[in-house]
């Protein structure tokens, strides 16, 4: 008998295509009558080979339920449930599949009706790109704005605005250009970085697969061309390795390892890693899979990590690189999309699921509810179903978080009602460092890791140590009122470190570099342990400061004094320091005061 798994014949070419075929997730949204189901039906009809019986069923259904006087109605390929056939509207998220030569598409079809915003958010959460469908006769409606805003909020970077029913406006270029202009005005306030417009008719197929002969004025690509060519891979976070532990694998007494999906970045055997929340460090011993050990695992891979040391780790912990640790926080801001019919209650403890961790959360404040039509902040009010609002949350235990903008997986969470078990809300964590609008009352409740490290840079003899010591005295001895939690300020002084942790490093360029980077890591660690940190180490080169930025992202305080830089003491003046203290023009007291004022400003009144 022939080997049933032999690969021969035309299948070889098909396999090759599949080997390089990308999986792209597309969200489609539009208002109720924009013809969304028709468009997707059209893509399925024209892009895939439809089985004969599906076509036969479509013909039959078109006669019974169709809106095209018995002619083939592509929408009926899409509208699955009986209830929606009767109402002639789509009521939930449906998934459709088709492929081109280059890509395999999963299309999430979402409803246009306002009360179903939650379904659109659901579909948007995993989408790489969005098709926003408009009716050429109606232009940019409230619905379209809402959809574009949600897509943007959910982090979709690529949008195709499909202006449908061009046949009903005589394929008019003016109508198309007017809609484009309107949309662009609105889109300026969104985070969608890659925006395309295409005029089409889903029913007749103009500009869907093939260029329309009715619109010679349109020089851009067809919808299918755009779907095939928009670049999406680089949207992923390839930098920050994050591995939420999903399952502890202990099949036998001598095997203990940690299964999960790499959320972002990548990992190799031998990498030094840190486990949150314990902060214990170890190395990756191997990356195990059914198909053998891997030399590297990247984002989206489902793998099992074995570690060198026997550390107590459970589901919900996170494995990260030692020098790229996410913020550990019990309090943060997030955009919440309210999903449940039962409104937000501020005295209620919700279950929060963040990566693989479940704990409880309270919503401390609703800062404002978003008016999605104007993109302006409305009043602060309790969120009800389909509301989107910015809220401050307090979590029962610290979570390792990144901002949603930086990391779609470690920056997202859901809230679950503890009684009904309904999914109450979807949350996207806001990076507070880049966001304005925090009230003063909050500073006392802030997490320590929010406080930036202050790094005094300047050549030998500029007066860094003097400033650092003054800061230490100010905070530790006089306990200023803004330091309500009485956090200790630690000064990391270059000379002292040279005598201790960097004793093994010489004064060569490489020795200096290692000394600086080690200091940066120590500063980061102390920051995470809750200390206020001031560093006084020269960090003489711009390239070196960039490396330090990647480790602990300090505020750079340039301590300027003329006449101390020479050939044997090279120093690059920082091009864009956060603050400068000029010890030429200010005397010791004035210089100290200006630095302390700055520090209080940064640490105390942020």
């Amino acid at each position: 008998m022939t080997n049933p798994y032999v690969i021969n014949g035309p299948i070889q070419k098909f396999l090759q295509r599949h080997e390089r075929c990308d999986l792209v997730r597309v969200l489609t949204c539009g208002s109720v009558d924009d013809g969304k189901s028709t468009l997707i039906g059209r893509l399925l009809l024209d892009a895939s080979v439809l089985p004969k019986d599906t076509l036969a069923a479509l013909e039959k259904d078109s006669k019974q339920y169709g809106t095209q006087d018995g002619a083939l109605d592509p929408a009926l390929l899409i509208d699955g449930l009986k209830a929606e056939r009767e109402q002639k509207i789509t009521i939930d998220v449906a998934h459709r599949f088709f492929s081109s030569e280059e890509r395999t598409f999963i299309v999430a079809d979402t409803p246009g009706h306002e009360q179903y915003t939650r379904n659109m958010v659901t579909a948007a959460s995993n989408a790489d790109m969005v098709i926003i469908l408009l009716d050429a006769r109606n232009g940019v409606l409230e619905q379209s704005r809402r959809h574009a805003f949600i897509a943007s909020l959910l982090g979709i970077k690529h949008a195709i605005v499909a202006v449908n029913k061009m046949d009903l406006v005589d394929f008019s270029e003016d109508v198309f250009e007017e809609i484009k202009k309107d949309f662009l005005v609105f889109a300026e306030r969104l985070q969608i970085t890659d925006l395309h417009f295409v005029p089409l008719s889903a029913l007749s197929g103009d500009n869907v697969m093939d260029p329309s002969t009715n619109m010679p004025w349109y020089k851009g690509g067809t919808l299918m061309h755009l779907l095939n060519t928009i670049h999406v891979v680089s949207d992923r976070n390839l930098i920050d390795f994050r591995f939420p532990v999903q399952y502890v694998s202990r099949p036998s007494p001598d095997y203990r390892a940690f299964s999960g999906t790499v959320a972002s970045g990548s990992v190799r055997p031998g990498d030094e890693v840190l486990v949150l929340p314990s902060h214990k460090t170890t190395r990756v011993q191997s990356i195990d899979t059914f198909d053998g050990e891997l030399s590297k695992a990247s984002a989206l891979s489902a793998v099992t990590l074995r570690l060198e040391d026997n550390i107590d780790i459970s589901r919900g912990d996170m494995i990260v690189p030692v020098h790229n640790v996410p913020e550990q926080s019990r309090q943060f801001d997030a955009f919440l999309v309210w999903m449940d019919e039962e409104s937000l209650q501020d005295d209620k403890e919700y279950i929060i699921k963040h990566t693989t961790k479940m704990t409880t959360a309270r919503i401390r404040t609703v800062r404002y509810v978003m008016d999605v039509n104007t993109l302006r902040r409305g009043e602060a009010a309790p969120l009800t179903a389909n509301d989107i609002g910015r809220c401050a949350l307090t979590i029962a235990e610290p979570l390792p978080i990144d901002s949603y903008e930086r990391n779609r997986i470690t920056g997202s969470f859901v809230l679950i009602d503890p009684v009904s078990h309904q999914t109450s809300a979807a949350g996207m964590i806001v990076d507070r460092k880049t966001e304005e609008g925090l009230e003063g009352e909050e500073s006392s409740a802030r997490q320590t890791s929010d406080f930036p490290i202050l790094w005094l840079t300047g050549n030998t003899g500029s007066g860094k140590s003097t400033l650092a010591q003054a800061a230490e005295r100010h905070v530790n001895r006089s306990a200023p009122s803004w330091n309500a939690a009485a956090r200790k300020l630690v000064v990391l002084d270059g000379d002292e470190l040279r005598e201790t942790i960097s004793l093994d490093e010489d004064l060569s360029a490489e020795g200096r570099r290692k000394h600086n980077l080690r200091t940066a890591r120590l500063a980061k660690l102390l920051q995470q342990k809750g200390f206020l940190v001031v560093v006084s180490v020269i960090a003489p080169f711009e390239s070196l400061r960039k490396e330090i930025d990647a480790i602990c992202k300090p505020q750079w305080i340039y301590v300027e004094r003329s006449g101390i830089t020479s050939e044997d003491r090279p120093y690059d003046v920082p091009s864009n320091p956060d603050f400068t203290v000029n010890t030429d023009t200010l005397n010791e007291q004035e210089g100290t005061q200006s630095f302390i004022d700055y520090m209080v400003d940064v640490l105390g009144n942020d």
Partner: protein
Amino acid sequence: MKNMSHIRQLEAESIHILREVVASFENPVMLYSIGKDSSVLLHLARKAFHPGKPPFPLLHVDTTFKFKEMTAFRDSYVRDELGLDLIVHTNADGVEKQVTPFSHGSSAYTDIMKTEGLRQAMSKHGFDAAIGGARRDEEKSRSKERVFSFRNADQRWDPKSQRPELWHLYNTRVRTGESMRVFPLSNWTEVDVWLYILLEQIPIVPLYFAAKRPVVERDGTLIMVDDERLPLLPGETPKEKMIRFRTLGCYPLTGANESTAQTVSEIIEELLSCPNSERFDRLIDFDQPSSMEEKKKAGYF
């Protein structure tokens, strides 16, 4: 940066879902129908928990009319070769009442032996999560199905009140008596399944490959005469034909296709130029309009 190919992305997503089930539920089970989708699902489960065995039992609801080759494959491969924990459940009540597709009609038979049988087994063992191989591309009503699909204490599905499913943050909370149906293959298509079987050389029941088998033709459908229980109509004589099956279920209710495809490669080729979508061959879907949706509400998989 090179992207993972789409099939490897689907594989990783399914493994993630399987691990999530085991980590979140007390007493999960995998529904094992012996078909190709179950074979893929089982293979993914072996991958997800390697080097261990899948930490849940497999449940097969035996309706007593499965093809002989299916039962043989189940016992020799799953039970003996892989050594997995296999539960076989048959609705004893239905057996006692001698419920067959011939005496009760396909609809009532499926309801009693399959749907009711499954509900019995779920209750008897107190499973709080059942992993199944259903895919969204199979049928219209399934395209709306969640990956984690909530079932109330009566094991019923309400298409109007499904939990929103965001990112890969599945809401796995259930109360005692309630349960979850979980579909790790939700985003796979029929072609993906075959492609994966080929790439991973996953063992499947030989009925998927074309061979000479005895069949009778009824209303344009080829029914294999798998044993003597199939009542032959007056004038009907089984003929040997070169056939294979696209889906496997109860033999009197499963239509065969004339085919010469004897390898997975040839099956995929046939599929890509195929005139029929796979559920066409399952007669039960055509009993009544929207019939799959009705069955799902009642607790059918």
